[in-house]
Structures are given as C-alpha cells and as structure tokens.
C-alpha cells in the first residue's frame, strides 16, 4: 500500500539516481570536448583500426573517471558487439602480480567459456594471457584492460604492466590498456622499461564548471513528467525545485559546499543527504533540507571531541598545552601530572583528583585521539612514561573551551596565560620557524589532515592556518620532489581537498616566491593570522 504514495516513490527515485554515478555523468558527457567523447574516440578508433593503445585517466577522487569509462564501455559494447572483451582489475584487489595474472586468466576464461583452473601457476597464467592476446588479435577482437588505482600496480616490480605493455608492441595483438589513477604523476612511477612502452596519452578530469553544476542539479533533482507520477504532483515538485534552484540563498549554500568539495561525487553525496531529509508528508524538497545537510556535513570532529571531554580531561589537555608553550619538546604523563599539580597549587580548585583517576582520564584522551604517542607503539613502556603529544591545535583547544558549557575558570586562565606566552615567543623566533613549527611538533600528515578537513573551512582562524600550512607543505614537497606538479595532485596530500580555483592557474614556483618574499619583507607577518588570510586571499581562495 505504501507503493502508491508518490512522495515515497519520488524519494526512492531521487535516491537511486544519486547512488548511481553513471546517471550524473551522462548529463555532463554530451559536449564535444568532454572527456567522454575524447575517450570514446580513442578507444573506438583503436577498435576499428585494430591497433594497440594505452591511456591514463587522471583526476582527483570522485571526479568520475570510472563512471565516464563505464559509460564509454557500455556504449562501445552496444556498438561493436562481439568485438570487445573487457578485463577489469583494481589496484586495491590485485596489486600483487601473481594475483593480477590469476584474475586476468579467470576473467578471460569466463569471457570465452573456458574452464579456469585455480591451481595454475604464475607462469601458466601469464603465458595464457599472451596467447589469448594473440588469438584475439587474429580474430580481430579487442581486449580492453581497465586498471583501476593504476598507481598501486606500479608499486612492486611492475611485471604485470611490463608484460601487458610489452605484448602490445607486437602487431598481432589488439588491446587497449586504460589506467585510472588519482595521482597526476602516475606515469612517473613507472620503470624506464615500462614507461618507454607506454603511449603517454593522458586524460585529465577536472571539477565541473558552475553552469554545468546548475544543469546537473536540475537534471538529477527534477521528476519526470511522464505517466510514472501523478502529473500534478510532478509539476508541483518541479516548480518548487525551480524556485529553490533560482534562490540566491540556495546558490550560496551550494557554492559554500563546492568551495571545499567540488568533485561531482562529493556533490552527489551532499545532495543525497539533503534529499534524505525530504519531508514525506508534503513530498516536496525545501531549502531547509539543503541547509540542514550542509550543517551536518560540515563537522568539526576535533571540536566535538573536546566538547565530549569531562572537566578532568580538559585539565589534562590544558596542562599539555602549557607544557608545549614552555617549549618542553617531549613530555609524558608524569610531567603532565606535575603541571596539573602546579595549576592546582596556584589556583585552588575543587577538581583535584588522585593520580590513578587522572591516569584513566589520560587514557580516555588517548582513546579519543586528542593526544597520541610521539613514537610508534612499538615501545614496551607503560602509559605513564611514554612521551605523548597533543593532536589538537591551540585554536581548536581554545575554541573548544570557549564553546564548552560548564568550563571552569582556571582552564581559560591557564590557556590565556599560555596564549600570551605563545605570542611573545613568536616575536622572538623568526616567523618562518613558527609557521613550520606546527607540522614539526605534530605528526605532519595528521595535523595536516585535520587542518585541511573541509569541515573547518568556515572557521576564519583555521582557514588562514590552513593557508599557510598548505604553503609550507608546498615548500617542503617541492624540495623533496624535483618534478613540478600542480598542488592539488601532490601525492602526499589528500587531494580531494585541493580543488580551489587558484591552484589551477598559479604554479608552485609562484607560491614559493610569494612566501619567500613575504618572509623577507615582513618576518613577523606569519604570526598574525589575520594578516595571512587578508593578503593571501587572492592566492588561496
């Protein structure tokens, strides 16, 4: 009986659209210079002309590489039936050569109705593949190898890649190798012998332009006006939707969201959340749904964590912060307890607890991952003695304390004391060390990760902080890797966050000069976070 409810049906339809990336990319694929048409042209020409080819599809995660490829493949399978067989491998599953050959043999057997033996050796499998390539070439049948997570195949000895690309050098074979990767430097990872056999064709996938997104939103969210829905309902729904889409507030929401996640997949994820909030009573989407989804998707995990802490745990955090301010580069539970005692001595509070209670609170903090061990867990120290570090930045701690409901005074006191020290210290040391000090004291990847967390973007302090860490990392990366790569593809970075417009146009060298000039000109500039955000606005956002 629930089947008849049009609202529920509409919700189901929208959800299934959002869960199917092919649907979204179909809408984007019809212009002539889209990746879809380029890829289709490349593959179909190598099918019709019976030649070998190899292509790399590169772009940040969620930009629809696989979805576009699937569209192309399904079209080609319809156009040229019986002339294509597709072998799909994923670097996540088949990164070892042995496993990959086995999987290739298995899929080839499935395709050609042969019996696959699980016992076949590595050699058997690889020879079988070469033989099949030759046979298929003679029969004018193209084998398309899709290698998802291509960079993972390049980790080991690259036997698979070598034998695949080497087999394609002969005239008899007829195959297309399509690598899909999130790393722009994926072809640089290849060995020399493999690279020389690779065609160096690359397709870049970039986030869609603004008007594309408008089109996409309409395409996904509007209901069909054919017979599947009651006509007046569908018309009303679409009219409401048009209203929302034209609303300036809605545009603002979407652009806020796209500022940190502009790939299509992330947009779909956001829309999914918004759509699932749809009110089934009225059966209409509303602006509130999108607002709620935005606030729910922009989270501050560390701040939430601090809010969850008990008073005692906050005390310990503040103690650690104070120790850091005092430039103790390494401290453990015992030194924290000493600091705790000194706080208690100076400000008499009721919150002075026994050591074992504090130890448990300390362990809670470790579990919450607000603090962590400085060295890896290999040590056989007990908890009290192993050195620890804070995994939250000062600003996060400060904000967390400010928003904490029943915050005792001495915490704030301790912190403000700490912050005073920090700024004095900043004037003494040079600005560059300060701006680099964060990644040094903390685990760089970790601190970096949460700095870049999209949820923290609307926080001005974090934003500026992010900007300079980003710059610092650009510097450190540029020193370690000589090859110049655009920022959003640096392999160490979770590049799905790096999709700002600026980085597309400005090179890394530009950044470097900008920073060095700034540091020379105004050494203290980096202390003042507002200054950074003001002056780098043009560069960062």
């Amino acid at each position, binding site marked *: 009986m629930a089947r008849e409810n049009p609202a529920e049906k509409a919700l*189901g339809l929208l959800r299934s659209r959002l*869960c199917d990336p092919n649907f979204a990319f179909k809408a984007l694929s019809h212009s002539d210079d889209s990746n879809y048409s380029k890829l289709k042209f490349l593959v179909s020409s190598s099918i019709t002309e019976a030649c070998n080819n190899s292509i790399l599809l590169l772009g940040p995660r969620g930009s629809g590489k696989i979805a576009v490829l699937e569209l192309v493949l399904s079209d080609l399978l319809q156009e040229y039936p019986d002339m294509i067989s597709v072998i799909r491998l994923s670097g*996540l599953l088949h990164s070892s050569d042995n496993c990959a050959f086995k999987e290739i043999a298995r899929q080839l057997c499935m395709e050609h109705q042969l019996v696959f033996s699980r016992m076949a050796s590595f050699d058997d499998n690889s020879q079988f593949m070469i033989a099949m390539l030759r046979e298929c070439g003679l029969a004018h049948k193209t084998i398309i190898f899709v290698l998802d997570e291509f960079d993972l195949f390049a980790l080991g000895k690259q036997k698979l890649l070598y034998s695949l690309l080497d087999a394609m050098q002969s005239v008899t074979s007829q195959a297309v190798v399509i690598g899909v990767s999130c790393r722009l430097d994926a072809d640089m990872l290849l060995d020399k012998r493999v690279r020389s056999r690779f065609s160096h064709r690359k397709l870049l996938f970039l986030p869609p332009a603004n008007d594309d997104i408008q089109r996409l939103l309409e395409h996904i969210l509007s209901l069909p006006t054919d017979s599947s829905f009651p006509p007046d309902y569908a018309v009303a729904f679409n009219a409401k939707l048009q209203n929302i889409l034209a609303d300036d507030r809605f545009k603002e929401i979407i652009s806020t969201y796209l500022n940190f996640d502009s790939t299509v997949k992330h947009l779909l*994820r956001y829309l999914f*959340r918004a759509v699932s909030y749809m009110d089934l009573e009225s059966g209409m989407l509303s602006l509130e749904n999108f607002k709620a989804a935005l606030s729910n998707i922009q989270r501050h995990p*560390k701040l939430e964590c601090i809010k969850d802490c008990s008073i005692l745990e906050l005390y310990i955090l503040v103690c650690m912060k104070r120790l850091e301010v005092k430039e103790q580069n390494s401290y453990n539970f015992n030194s924290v307890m000493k600091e705790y005692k000194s706080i208690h001595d100076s400000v008499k509070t009721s919150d002075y*607890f026994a050591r074992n209670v504090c130890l*448990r609170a300390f362990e809670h903090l470790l579990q919450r*991952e607000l603090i962590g061990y400085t060295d890896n867990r290999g040590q056989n120290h007990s908890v009290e*003695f192993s050195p620890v570090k804070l995994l939250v930045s000062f600003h996060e701690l400060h904000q967390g304390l400010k928003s904490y409901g029943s915050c005792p005074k001495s915490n704030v006191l301790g912190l403000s004391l700490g912050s005073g020290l920090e700024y004095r210290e900043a004037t003494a040391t040079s600005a560059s060390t300060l701006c680099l000090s964060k990644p040094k004291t903390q685990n760089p990847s970790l601190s970096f990760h949460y700095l870049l967390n999209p949820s923290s973007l609307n926080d001005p302090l974090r934003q500026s902080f992010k900007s300079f860490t980003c710059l610092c990392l650009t510097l450190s990366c540029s020193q370690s890797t000589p090859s110049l790569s655009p920022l959003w593809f640096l392999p160490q970075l979770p590049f799905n966050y790096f999709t700002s417009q600026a980085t597309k146009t400005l090179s890394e060298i530009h950044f470097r000069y900008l920073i060095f000039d700034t540091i020379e000109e105004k050494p203290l500039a980096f202390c003042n976070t507002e200054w950074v955000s003001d002056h780098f606005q043009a560069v960062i956002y």
Partner: protein
Amino acid sequence: MEEKDEGAKIKDQGRDQQRGNHQEKTKHELVHIIASTNSDMGKEESPKTTRRTTRSSAAATSSKNVVEETYVSSSQPPTLSDLVLGEERESFSLDDLLSSFPGRRNQIQELLQLLGPRNSPMLPIFVYGGISTGKTSMVLETFRHLKRPFVYSSCLSCYNPRILFESVLNQLFLHRKNAVNGYSSAKRCESPSDFVNFLREALVSILGNLEGNSGKLSSKRSGKANGNMIYLIFDNLERVRGWEKGSTILPLLFNLYDILKMPEVTLIFISNASPDTYYSSMGYVEPISIYLPDYTQDDLQQIFLRNQANKKLYASFLSVVLRPFCRITRRVDELSPAFSLLFTKYCEPVTNLGVVPNKELNQRLFHYFRPHVAPSLNEIFKVSSHPSTEVEVRETKGKGSTRKFGDCEVDQLDFHMPTSAKYLLISAFLASRNPATLDASLFDSTGGSNSRKRRRKASEKSVEQKETAEQELLLNPGTFPMERLLAIFQCITSIGEGSLDEEEEGYDGLGIRNGNGGLMSDVLLQLSSLCSANFIVTGGSCPLEGSTRYRSTVSEDMVLKVARSIKFPLSKYIYR
C-alpha cells in the same frame, strides 16, 4: 501484570535461543546490561532481548538449553530470515526504539532518514562517537525496528582480514559452523580479490532470494526480511588501523561500495574514532557521517533512572552523586559500577527500600552519605578483583580507617611477594631512579654517614647538569644493566639485615644469607617473574654492550609502601 509476563516470556525465548556468539555480542550486551543498571529486568522496553536468533557457531555449551537448541538448529538449515533481527511477530515500534535510547532522538531520526523507505538505495554511512555512547546498539536496534536484513561483523572479534572476510561470507552464504562441517567456514578466503568475488556471488544469490520473497507476498513472510536491500555493518572499524595489513584493508572497505557497484548493497561503518583520523595516502570519498556525542548530564540521569525499582529514591541519590562524577567521566560503563556500590551505601540507613523519600529523609541520607562522595571520586576507576560482596565485607570491617579503600592492591602485594622479590623491586627502583655514578657513594658500606654525605655532595655537582636535565624532564625511569641491579641488591640486602635485627625472619633470611650460588638462581628467577608481572620491563639493548637493559616501572608511592613493609630505610638511598 499480564504485560510483564508477556515480556518475561519473550525474554526467555530470546535467552533460550541464544546459541553462541558468532558475532561478538559481548560488548553489545555489556552496553545493554549497563544501560539497565542493577535492576529488576521485568521491563518490557529493556533492549536486552537483542539476540540474533540462530546462525551461530554453537560455541556456548554452558547451559542445557543451549545444547538442546543447538541440536534443533542444526536440524533446520538456516534461512534468509536469520539475517533479520528479532522475533517473527514481535513488533518493535518507533516509540519503543526512541524510548530505549534516551538522548538519542535526533541521531535515530537521522539514521532512519538516511536509511530511507523500503528498497531505496543508499550511500555508505559512517557512525562514530566515543566509547559507550550506544553506537552499535542504536544501529542494531534500528534494524530490529525496520526488520531489514543485514550482516554484522565486528572488527574486534574478527581480528584479521581473513576472519573478517569469512565472517561476512558465512553470514551471507547462510552457512553455520557446526560439528558436521568441522566448524569450517563456507569459503576459504584470504585475499581481498577472492573476497570481492565471493561477496559478489553471495550477494547476487541473496538478493535473488530477497526479491523472490517480496514477490511472493505471502502473509507468513511479510513480517520478515523487509525490502530487498542488504546492509553490511562493520563495527569497531578503528581496530583495522592497527592491523598488519590495515593500510590496504581500510581503503578496500571504504571503496567497497564503488567496487561492488551494486545499488542494493550498502555499507555501514561504526567506529570510535572520528573520520578525520582515518587518514590514508590513497584517499577515498568520505562516507556520510552520523555523530553520537557523549551523553550529557541530563541524558545520564534518564539512563540511570531506567529500570530502577524506586525511582524517587534513586533520583535523590543521583542528585547527590551525578554532578561531581560527571566532572571526571561521562561514560556509562564506568559510572554504573561506581554508582551501584555507592547506592547500596546510600541506602544503608533506609530499612524499607520501597520508601518514597520526602525532604527530611533526603536530607538525613545526604548528611549520612556526604563524607563518602569525595573519597569515592578517587576510587571511580578502581577495578576490584573481588566479587562485590567480599569488598563490602572488607569495607565494613575496616570502618573508620581512611586507607581501606585504595590500598588493597598494595596489601595484596604484601601477602603475595617473597621478601627477596621486594628487595629486588626496591633495588630496581633505585637503579632506575639514581644516576649510576652515585652508586659508589650511596652504597659504600665502609664509609660512615658523614663521609657518604660529603662525597655525595661532591659528585652531585658534576652529575647535576647532565642527569637532571634529561631525567627530570621526562621523569622517566632510567635503564640499567643487570649487573648493577644485582650489585645494588647485594648492598641493600646486607644493609637490611645489619640494621634491622627484628625483621630477621626465618624464611626470608635463608635465601639472602646463603652462599652466592643459591642466591643468584633464586634472584634471577624472581627477576624474570617481576619482568613478566611488568614491574620491571626490559628496555632496548645497548648496541655497544649487547646486554639487555632493564627499567623499573613502579611508582614511588608503591616502592615506599613495599619498603615500609620490610622496614627498609628507602629515603636514605634516593637521590634527589
């Protein structure tokens, strides 16, 4: 009254049908047991009935019922309906669901909205929140309410990739480990690629079944296996990060939805750690997250009031204890054992537990009880190894003395440690704490007390700059080789004997006074047992010397107590 009977019956059924725990129910249940603190279990809305019927390894063979049930269950092949939680005709309404989780209304509603109506596909979601905030039970109970098929596997009990994969596959293949198949899994599956292949196979067959069922629309089936979606739940995901192959399994799990490309399958991750801690160099499209914050004080009040016999009395008790305890921790699993002990204490003056407290009584109880609150705050995390009754007996015996609470650990040490081990512990502590260069001056048996002091002062200066800076900084015990430990041990045992004649007891003197050979073997044995008890840890070996170095981990307080028990003047030998 009848309602209660019904509830009890359902519960009994549930209990009877518990057959082993294929899927790490222990933690899940613990949460529930805690949620219904020390109480009568007659309430119907108590979520303790959470039992996945059937499909299990028949591991528990403790009770007769279980054995019988195993027999019955092995005769019936598992069916699709086993993937649904709850009894066949049992109805578990939304109100029941909401009332069984105080303070979680928003989160449950959000989860329901994301799960959506029947048969609507869904993107993966990620449920996270601190320990004991009800993540697992909330998700499972929601599925019990929805009656949709799901597969639950916890990365805590499935502690490596193979077991995790096989646990998921077993449930999907409707395979039950039992004596007939030699307790083996449905498929042997070690590599991720095999897992994905098998998973696809299993899902296709299961989804075919589900569709067939919903097509049939028979009245008997309609209560079961609602819809043709299947949900894979991975609990305790944060564990995977610590696995040996965690760096490959995590991206696999996060990308599994994209790899499978089956809209009828959805993943739900449950984790203690927030999504930002799952950093990987590969990156992934983050799942949709739902956050469960820790319980607030008001939520805790509601939770603890559930299932209490005398709510008024307990409320007055909570008004006294909850606030101070919340300053330390807000975790239910830690508060409830502390409260259960305190409540009995609180009730001591009351003869009739069913009494409705008035203002006067409350004040009387409060005055009686107040002195207990402050010390108990510092006892909150004490894990008592005795059953609670015994603890009570000890407490009543030692009335008045302030030491009775915390010292049971050290008291036990007194009884269970041989004297030579105590000496060894002290010498290890001294070796860790004192700089090695001062040993000669501290333990010089020939020098008088005057000369010792002088020499000590002289050497103090030279050592000070080097040692204090490093050692005081971390307050970290230093390492020492075994030779030094034994030398100190020799010194202090001889001192201990010389100065304290009355301490001389038959059995402890023997080991120490005897010749070196006997002593050494005994001491080495003690040393290794102290090491295995984690009082002394073996540190990294020095690359130059090649011998292992030791480090003492005992706190100063404890060593002082040990020293007091053998009347050893420890303070003389600690370098400050």
